[in-house]
């Protein structure tokens, strides 16, 4: 009996008792089963985005500092009475009771323990610890505890004692005025730090590059068949002059560095030890427990800002991610500059010039498929072709005198071109779709008015297809920005000393290695010496990357929807 028949026979019997049976036979529960699939999919994506959003933002929110007093027995074991720490979480002590014979822990319920960030890694030797809840006597949140972000050794949770500013009497930090003075000193130190960086990176860096290029020229002259001694001497003189300037700058930065160590802060940590550090070592200081909601919000926004604009510290586990963000930006820019014209030209050719036939259809299938070829394959190609083949040839032709490879090693140009190649199908497909959506009538109208084919394309078709082309470009950029695997073999590094775009000639350094948000995540999560400390940074970086990629994609989707509504021709 065919399905339609059975439905007909059933529907002829309108008895109410069969109604429910028909619902079941009609497969309504199975409809819900398929609906469950959709519900799972939606939950997965929402939960993931929510998780990243929450964890990412949490990293910036100032956490309260707890002062944990230990029970006498625990105090003996830990070696101190008080632990000052951020409480990161609670977890079951799993298997510990079996492993260690369950010292003081009930057999049936192993109890819970607290995960604490104690900071002061320089004095404690560790930044994190676990504490069974049974060892805790009392938890309080005193307002006076100061949290310091330092250039080295991570955060410190301290009780401030004294600020010693050069040329002034020591200042006790028990008063509000003391804290203000400390904040002023920290700001001054930050200013000096920026100055040091400007001198050391930009000026000295520029000088040493010039010296290096002069040396290369000297080598070139010396290696030539008829070395001209006068020319060599003039180069020598210029090198000497540059070196003198170099010395001057170095002295200047030395003086600033000394100033960074002039002022000191004395504090006491939870184990009772007192310690003195130069104010120049402190990045920021705040009293999390004394902050109200708006105070916290201010710190939160400040943290976010410095995350985006600062350089990384401590093997990337602290500080900001500016170089990675900037590297991603420059790479995406080069990528889009490379990918758009080529993709558009190929699409115009396929749609407007090539005669539709089996060949074009085959080519179209091939291009569609290239979009599905794994990114790592493009990476392999990029390494073999761009880096070794093209880059190696450029080096042998133009940089024979340079000591290391210039273009014959991974760099931002090669990484961008590799990704451009990878995303070219995206642009081709999107552009073709947009071109196809331009109605035949418009085209024929233009031709009928006597416009040439190119004029039609240039003035009629392309403007109409522009939103579609932009969609393709954005999609390509979004895919390129989030891709990591091909970059790992074509020029991304965990820590680049210089940016690919800066103030020294020729401004855009295509041969430089660069940092990238996605690789930053990989590196922090997997290669970091202290992965626990890096955790908030990874989530924050993830949030930033996702925000970038999702914004780009949503933009593309919105543009495309508008386009679809405008030209209501369906594309498969």
């Amino acid at each position, binding site marked *: 009996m065919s399905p339609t028949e059975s439905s007909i026979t059933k529907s002829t019997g309108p008895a109410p008792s069969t109604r429910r049976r028909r619902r079941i036979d009609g497969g309504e*529960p199975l*409809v819900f089963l398929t609906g469950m699939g959709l519900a799972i999919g939606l939950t997965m994506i929402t939960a993931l985005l929510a998780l990243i959003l929450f964890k990412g933002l949490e990293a910036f929110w100032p956490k309260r500092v707890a002062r944990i007093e230990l029970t006498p027995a625990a105090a003996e074991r830990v070696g101190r009475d008080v632990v000052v720490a951020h409480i990161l979480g609670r977890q079951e002590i799993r298997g510990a009771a079996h492993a260690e014979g369950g010292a003081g822990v009930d057999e049936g319920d192993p109890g819970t323990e607290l995960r604490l960030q104690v900071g002061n890694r320089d004095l404690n030797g560790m930044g994190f610890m676990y504490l069974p809840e049974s060892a805790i006597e009392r938890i309080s949140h005193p307002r006076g505890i100061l949290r310091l972000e330092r250039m080295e050794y991570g955060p410190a949770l301290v009780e401030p004692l004294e600020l010693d500013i050069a040329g002034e009497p020591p200042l006790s930090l028990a008063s509000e005025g003391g804290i203000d003075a400390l904040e002023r000193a920290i700001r001054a130190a930050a200013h000096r730090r920026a100055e040091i960086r400007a001198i050391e990176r930009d000026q000295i860096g520029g000088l040493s590059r010039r010296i290096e290029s002069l040396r290369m020229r000297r080598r070139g002259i010396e290696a030539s068949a008829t070395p001209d001694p006068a020319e060599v001497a003039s180069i020598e003189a210029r090198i000497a002059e540059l070196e003198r300037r170099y010395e001057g700058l170095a002295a200047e930065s030395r003086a600033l560095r000394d100033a960074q160590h002039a002022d000191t802060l004395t504090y006491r940590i939870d184990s009772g030890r007192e310690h003195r550090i130069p104010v120049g070592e402190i990045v920021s200081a705040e009293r999390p427990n004394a902050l109200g909601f708006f105070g916290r919000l201010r710190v939160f926004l400040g943290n976010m800002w410095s995350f985006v604009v600062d350089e990384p510290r401590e093997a990337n586990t602290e500080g900001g991610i500016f170089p990675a963000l900037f590297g991603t930006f420059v790479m995406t820019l080069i990528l889009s500059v490379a990918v758009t014209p*080529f993709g558009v*030209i190929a699409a115009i050719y396929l749609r407007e010039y090539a005669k539709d036939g089996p060949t074009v259809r085959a080519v179209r299938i091939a291009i569609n498929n290239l979009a599905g*070829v794994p990114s*790592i394959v493009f990476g392999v*190609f990029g390494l073999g072709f761009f880096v070794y083949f093209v880059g190696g040839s450029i080096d042998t032709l133009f940089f024979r005198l340079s000591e290391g490879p210039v273009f014959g090693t991974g760099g931002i140009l090669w990484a961008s071109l590799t990704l451009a190649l990878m995303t070219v199908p995206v642009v081709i497909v999107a552009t073709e779709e947009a071109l196809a959506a331009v109605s035949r009538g418009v085209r024929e109208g233009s031709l009928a008015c006597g416009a040439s084919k*190119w004029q039609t394309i240039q003035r009629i078709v392309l403007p109409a297809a522009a939103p579609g082309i932009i969609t393709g470009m954005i999609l390509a950029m979004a895919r390129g920005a989030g891709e990591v695997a091909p970059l790992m073999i074509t020029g991304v590094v965990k820590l680049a000393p210089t940016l690919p775009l800066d103030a020294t000639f020729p401004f855009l350094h295509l041969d430089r290695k660069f940092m990238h948000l996605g690789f930053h995540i990989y590196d922090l999560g997997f290669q970091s010496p202290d992965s626990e400390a890096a955790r908030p940074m990874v989530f924050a970086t993830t949030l930033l990357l996702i925000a970038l990629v999702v914004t780009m994609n949503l933009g593309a989707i919105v543009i495309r929807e508008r386009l679809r509504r405008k030209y209501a021709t369906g594309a498969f």
Partner: protein
Amino acid sequence: MSDSTEPSHLDRATPAPAGARVATRRSVLLLDRAMSLIIRLGGIGIIVAVLGIFVFILWQILPLFRGAAVELASSGRAPPGARLMLVDEWSERPGFLGADGTLTFIDLVGDAPAESIDLAGRVGAQITAAHLRPTTGTIALGLEDGSFALADVNYRAEFDDGRRRVVPEVNVGAPIDLGGGRGRVLDVDYGDSGRDKVAAAIVEVEGKLEVRAVVLTQRRTLVGAGRIEVRGAFDATPLVGGTPKAVLASSKGDSFLVVTDEGEIDYFFAVDSGFELRQRFSPFEDQPDPRISMAEFIFGDVSLALVGVDGTNRVFSLFVPEGQSVRTWGRTKQFPPLPGPVSAYTKSTRTKAFLVVAGSLASLRFSTTESIRWQEELPFAPRLVAISGKNDRILFVDESSRLHVYALSDPHPEASWRAFFGRIWYEGADRPGFEWQSTGGTDDFEPKLSMVPLLIGTLKGTFYALLFAVPIAVSAAMYASQFAHWKVRAFVKPLMEVMASLPSVVLGFLAALWLAPIIETRVPSVLLMLLLIPSAGVVLGLLWSAAPVAVRNRAGLFGELTVLLCGLLVAGALGWIGGPLLERLVFTVPDPAEPGRRIADFRLWWPAFTGADFQQRNSLVVGFMMGFAVIPIIFTIAEDALSNVPQSLRSGSLALGASRWQTAVRIVLPTASAGIFSALMIGLGRAVGETMIVLMATGNTPIMDFNIFSGMRTLSANIAVELPEAPHHGTLYRALFLGAMLLFLMTFAVNTVAEVLRQHLRERFRTI
């Protein structure tokens, strides 16, 4: 075309003014033609370039499958009557040990006069046997008085004026007594691992042959290495089964081998009190004539190249046979036979290659892959042969003491079809197998380049990803396209596209650092959720359809979806909480510390119950996270295919009284099946090539099983791990390109099938 603008007269206007008025500017025409050309060239060029990726990768791979190229470079004269030849890394100053005990170095590139060193004079006795270790340049010299001495030849490269000059330096040690009676040493060999040193020799004492071995030590002093002294001497004669013919000392310094005239080999291994006879084997016992023509080590000294008197060529390796505890020799390779007994032998000092000469036939063979790299009938019969340290020259000395230098080019001896896809009996393994291990700690490491474990890993990851993703994606597409309100669809599709755009590095990071530790302790919860969530769907469906129409209508557009989401959350929470209970009931193992007690821990239960591994970063985690990458792709394409089924078909079915489920399953699904299949294929392609998730969320161990709680290494992750370290144009580099090629072909094939299906489907809808 411009005619229409003119007033219509029966008599046409004279063409000249009309032509002038409508004539197109030349520049416009030129531009049009130029742009046509540019776009044509550019378009074709880009398409060719994009497809050129395939060609380029292929071009990088091809050298892997080429044999060795050998051709005559130069010839010259060697000192007459040489018994042994050694050569430096650059093959500039080969040395020849003459029968009279002089070592003569000639200059092949410059015109330096031959340089002779009287070794016999230096040691003060006549040299009766000599054995060269090409890896270290040490010659063990057997002397007439039953002792032996070591001569170390070091080549030093001096640079003056930018030109290289190779200077040989010879250090001759004092003779070392082998113990026992005096007599002529007939054969001697010396092995040195740096810590352990052993020497073995055959000594003719009063017409009888004795086999002796000594264990040596070298004191380290402040000024450097001290004298070599004998720590213990051992007489192996009583243990040797036949007439000794040759001895071989292992460079591990712990063992030696005695080859007898009868065709047996005795393997002696160092123990506290000297040596024990660990094994006696006859490598050619199945041949009519079991006698051995040649037995020599292959680089690394854990494999023996053996040739019988009839030319049979085999390789024996040291390995621990199954069920035993010590390493013994066993046959691992069988090469095509040589025409007769061997007249000269040498081995590469970099790879597992060896060169055997029988009559005038020279054959360069590679042990690992059991392949002949090069074989040629030479116009002379070589008596001595040597391969240079750089593996780029072969030197032959023929009967009339002429020296023939051949240029050798064999950059990828380890590579072959078999090495990548076949079973290979690697050194130290007890059976042939597939293995990937590209680098090792020592120089004599044997690279294992089988693609098979990586292919299996790739398939494993893909399998688990699809196992999770396909049911969810297809049913979601089905629901969204067939049952949900179009407004729901309009909201779901962009969300799914956002999901597709999530960078895989983010997914990988979350999988490894967030999900894996959670799942590790909560496997029973996950299992329970897998059971509860689909049942929740069915139960809710039953309840919902039983609910009065009024209630259902009031629920609005998102009503069903809201109910489903609530059901999902409740079922998920139940599963999460119920997991530990389930664990306590079912997944318990006896506590080893306390008999009678049982520990409830899935991580222990799984290995105990199935014998398979449990790792934190496992396929379950990978499958789940890859779902994020695969679900949106399958969903989008499948949803398109389902939505594009002509509305008339659906309406017809519904009008005939079929329920929405019946319509969907029996009308829409079969019509769109090709599209759904193509969606699955494209999802498969994505899962095959996914790199970052598997790189981060698995242990990257190249294992070959389908255990869901262990990791894997996929082709893509393998490339990402190893390519940054692979030397340019080395074998590993090209092998990784081969891996990329496999990936490329796999995804390309899968995607092409999908694309053709989709086109086919489009044709079909056009006709309906």
